[in-house]
């Protein structure tokens, strides 16, 4: 059977079971609302524009934070790939920092920047930077020595060699780094918004929770998941596959 068909069938069954369970009161409507009430609150949120404004606000923070994370991450990655001393010091620290979920920085960020957008953007930057840096480092370190030899016999060296050979040769890792940085930043953004101020998807989630509006909570969770899946599968995984094919990696 066609994988797409399988997937659609699976979701139909899942939602069917969910509707059935709600209809026969397998669980309380207050604790776990039916699909219909979730759809109703999503439609209401979209028609009165609150969810649209949330989406715009969240994406604005993500765009700012992720761009800064990619720039800083690339710079650090190049530095630790090129300098042994930097790799032994900063590189070791990055591995430690990467295992700390960026949201634990929020108390400090709120002290430094106040309970506002800047604190959230700071968390988003931290979420994406380290993973980008580590991928850039791997990419540069894994450039085929043959490419470098060939380029040197053609008179390329120094910065020219870096710009025209080493960097383009590590593009597959740049793409992977960007994909992972996006995923980490997206999670960091939601966590940050959940714990700080609005507008934003995470903030609306907490707001709905405070008012006991579980159907809106589930609705926002679905939006977060769908956006995550679309960006990862339809955008990044496609680019990754194309690049891998062209770079002769698959």
């Amino acid at each position, binding site marked *: 059977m066609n994988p797409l068909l399988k997937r659609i069938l699976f979701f139909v069954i899942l939602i069917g079971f969910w509707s059935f369970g709600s209809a026969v009161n397998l669980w309380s409507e207050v604790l776990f609302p039916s699909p219909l009430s979730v759809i109703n609150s999503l439609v209401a949120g979209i028609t009165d524009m609150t969810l649209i404004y949330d989406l715009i606000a969240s994406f604005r923070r993500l765009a700012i934070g992720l761009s800064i994370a990619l720039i800083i991450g690339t710079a650090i990655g190049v530095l630790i790939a090129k300098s042994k001393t930097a790799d032994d010091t900063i590189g070791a620290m990055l591995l430690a920092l990467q295992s700390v979920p960026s949201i634990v920085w929020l108390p400090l960020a709120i002290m430094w920047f106040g309970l506002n957008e800047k604190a959230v953007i700071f968390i988003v930057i931290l979420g994406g930077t380290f993973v980008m840096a580590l991928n850039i480092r791997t990419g540069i370190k894994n450039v*085929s020595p*043959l*490419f470098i*030899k*060939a*380029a*040197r*016999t*053609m*008179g*390329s*060296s120094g910065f*020219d060699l870096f710009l*025209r*050979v080493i960097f*383009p*040769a590590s*593009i597959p890792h740049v793409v992977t780094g960007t994909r992972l940085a996006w995923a980490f930043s997206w999670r960091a953004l939601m966590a940050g918004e959940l714990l700080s101020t609005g507008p934003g998807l995470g903030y609306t989630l907490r707001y709905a929770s405070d008012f006991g509006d579980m159907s809106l909570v589930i609705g926002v969770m679905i939006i977060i998941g769908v956006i995550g899946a679309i960006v990862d599968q339809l955008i990044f995984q496609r680019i990754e596959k194309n690049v891998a*094919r*062209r*770079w*002769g990696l698959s």
Partner: protein
Amino acid sequence: MFLTIQQLNKQFSDQNGQVSTILKDINLSVNEGEFISILGPSGCGKSTLLSIIAGLTSATEGKIKVEGTPISSPGKDRGMVFQEPALFPWLSVKENVMFPLKSDGSKIDAEEKATNYLKMVQLSNYLDHYPHEISGGMQQRVAIARALAMDPRLLLMDEPFGALDEQTRTRLHTQLENIWRDTKKTILFVTHSITESIKLSDRIIVMGTRPGTILADIKVTISRPREDHKEKMFELEEEIMTYLKKEIDKVIAEEN
């Protein structure tokens, strides 16, 4: 003399500090326009020798001069073709050939030059293809065009056809011979195939192993195209085989 190598020695030391001699007392003179094969069993240091001439590896002792100028680093006067094509996958065929031309002259000139050299290797229909879209033999022809595009005085080829199938190799031999005749480049061609060296070169430098030394310097006087003189080729092959057999016996004796 166009290229001279004097008293060249190359030693490597491994992790335990053990020094092994790769090349010993290499002396070689090459005339401009000569097609020279460097022939030897694997491990005789023939690729290392080529890499030293390219300027990618440094010699422990000795001098290499191209037209009297000593060599210490890579330069556009020496083009190199490796066993693998080493084309850049993010560039199209034409852009790959334009790679060494970027720094000098205009883009239009570079494009025209690249197109001409790709015509020379009969790939003018594949200008906008990417390396992964063409066959291994075609990729190697692009690599040859790329090395020629910077108009080097000396073309260094390190077993360039080693990874190709028999038919492709035979076709590329003819193409390379034509290119050499038309461009009058000096070519140093590393190979382990006796037939290949006899078919292509004016002179064959036979190398022995452990350490790598020059065993014989043989002038090939058979007139071209060589395929028309199968008997003479066969005689020469027997002669070279006697040199190499001693080497192979030596390697086997050492390993037992």
